[in-house]
């Protein structure tokens, strides 16, 4: 069953379509019969307990992993169905993994220019965009030094810039807010992603464990539990569904671990032995 999204005319507007995707590592199932449809211009956050398969799902959408069963469509084209379809999909998709690797000997500016050229961004516009991105993420000083001289947080910023410089209509971001980002970078990224989705129609699928940012920016939230999708809806509807009026962590706990709050109470109330 295709899980509904709140967008109007979802069939016409859907940008990412995940159809009956199942995956397992060895004999351990990770994802079972996942069906999701993400409309264009939506910022969708994937949440779930550790090890539930968020990164696997994003890797499948991004094209890093081929699912054991099922398939993914992006922009109406099926992933890996033909050479041309795959190239077209690659042209409109950028992926930020949880542990990106950057070429240490290149400077951030060189690397960003190289990535921009991969996606056929026009030269002058590309240089200008690189400058704006470096400014935005406070990397201007480090922009012309080898990436190896950057701190972990700065490397993460460069990796994010590498994803944004592509200017593609579909972004797949695995834990973009982790990895040592400073509060200012988190604020910038939150606003930029929301702007891309709202104003430029960019579809963003993002795994995040930071409820504050998800609450602030996501149009919809996918909650994975076990190997399946426990819920896929707007935060308001999730609240209505669970009957929980609290913050996202509480809604999340209600959906995934309903006993979480009781466990906390019992931890503190249990008599010392």
């Amino acid at each position, binding site marked *: 069953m295709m899980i509904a999204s709140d967008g109007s005319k979802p069939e016409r507007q859907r940008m990412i379509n995940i159809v009956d995707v199942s995956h*397992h590592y060895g004999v351990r199932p990770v994802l079972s019969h996942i069906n999701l449809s993400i409309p264009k211009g939506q910022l969708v956050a994937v949440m779930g307990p550790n090890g539930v398969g968020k990164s696997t799902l994003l890797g499948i959408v991004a094209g890093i992993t081929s699912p*054991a069963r099922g398939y993914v469509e992006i922009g109406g084209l099926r992933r*890996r169905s033909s050479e041309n379809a795959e*190239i077209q999909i690659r042209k409109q998709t950028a992926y930020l993994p949880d542990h990106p690797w950057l070429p240490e000997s290149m400077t951030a500016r060189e*690397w960003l220019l190289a*990535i921009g050229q991969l996606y056929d961004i026009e030269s002058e516009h590309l240089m200008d965009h690189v400058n704006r991105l470096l400014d935005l993420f406070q990397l201007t000083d480090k922009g012309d030094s080898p990436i190896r001289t950057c701190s972990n947080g700065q490397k993460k910023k460069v990796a994010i810039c590498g994803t944004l410089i592509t200017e593609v209509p579909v972004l797949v971001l695995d834990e973009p807010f982790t990895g040592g980002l400073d509060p200012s970078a988190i604020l910038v990224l939150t606003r930029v992603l929301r702007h891309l989705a709202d104003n430029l129609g960019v579809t963003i699928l993002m795994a995040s464990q930071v409820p504050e940012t998800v609450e602030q920016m996501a149009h919809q939230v996918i909650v994975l539990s076990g190997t399946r999708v426990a819920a896929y809806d707007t935060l308001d509807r999730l609240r209505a569904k669970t009957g929980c009026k609290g913050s996202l962590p509480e809604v999340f706990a209600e959906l995934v671990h309903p006993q979480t709050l009781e466990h906390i109470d019992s931890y503190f109330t249990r008599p010392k032995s």
Partner: protein
Amino acid sequence: MKRPFPFHSNLVWPAPGLVGAFVVIYGLVSVYFWLIAQTAPEPARSTFDVPEAVSCCEIILGFTAALYATYRLLRFHPACNPGYSRWLKLSPWTADRPLPAGPVHLVWQDAVVVGALAAIGIWQHVNPLLPVTAFIFVYLAWFTVLLAFTRRWGSCLALGFLWPSLMLPGIAPVPPTSVLPAICVVAAMAYVIWYGYRQSLKAFPWDFIKTALRSRRSSRSALDIEVRIPSAAGTLFELGWPFFVLSPKILPPTISPRTNLALGALAGWWSFCIIKASQMDPLPEIIVLLTIVAATFRLLIYAAGAAAPFNILGRIATGRIIVPGYDKIYATPLAVVVAAMLGGIIIKRSGAWYPETESIVIAILWWVLFGGGPTLRNWALTGQFRRRAPAIVNSNRQMIKQV
């Protein structure tokens, strides 16, 4: 009327320093052997009665002629001099005019230099044809390389067939065989080279060479990166993870069926010439062994960084023993190994026709190995696999932990 290729140019004379160095080295060696000849218990009549002296002269003269042939091409060919090539690109030079820094083709001054070496050979009782032959062969060999460098593939293919034919009995210039067939082959090679060279000049500027010659460290400007990034597999890794596996632009190279056909035919022809020249016995076992190595190599290239979507245990547990989207990489290696075994049996039974049979089997194995699907590009884009992050990503994680 302008003569496009005048056969004289004083620019090609070797530098006086080089000539001086040759004279000094040759003189010292001659003096050394003269002293040996004079101080021997039974003094020889002349230096040339000492066999080592003649051998040494042969080596020096042959080496000098080869060096001169190398100098003639590497010094004057624009493909070997990036600075010259860049300047030439900006100049009003066109392919129908002589190269301003000096000709690459032979001029009468070359005949003087090589003739001088041959004359020294006559004086020193060395076969005068030795420096001449060394010059011609090294010159042709370097030119073949340069034609490949400037991507004149048609000429390269023709030369690929002509070169090994010099080994064939009846053509190889070995007494008592007549040298006429060898001269005919060399003349054919010279013609192919001349034609390829003219075509390569017409195709100037060779922008593809710029990317190959560009050093890693020199790329610091945006323009440089533009040229450098889509160049070679070596730089692909510099795009970082995951861009180097998800790039929409840089994809694995693919051998076209036509190229594969030509290369397979070349492999078969070279094998035939070598077997004929060396009177080698049939070696089907070696062919099978090499085929297994090559098939394994192909499999490793395809499987590098691309794991099956799930492992053996997963296959057994789910009952999906064969995963067609992934297991197709095994098809061609298996087919080629089976073909090698069948070919081995045919070679064993071919009797006196074994050189022909063996070379045909080799050509067929080549075609199957490199032409069998899926192509590397098709595999990279449509294969059902799981990309593994390179080891360097994991090493980066370790570094992060240490920090």
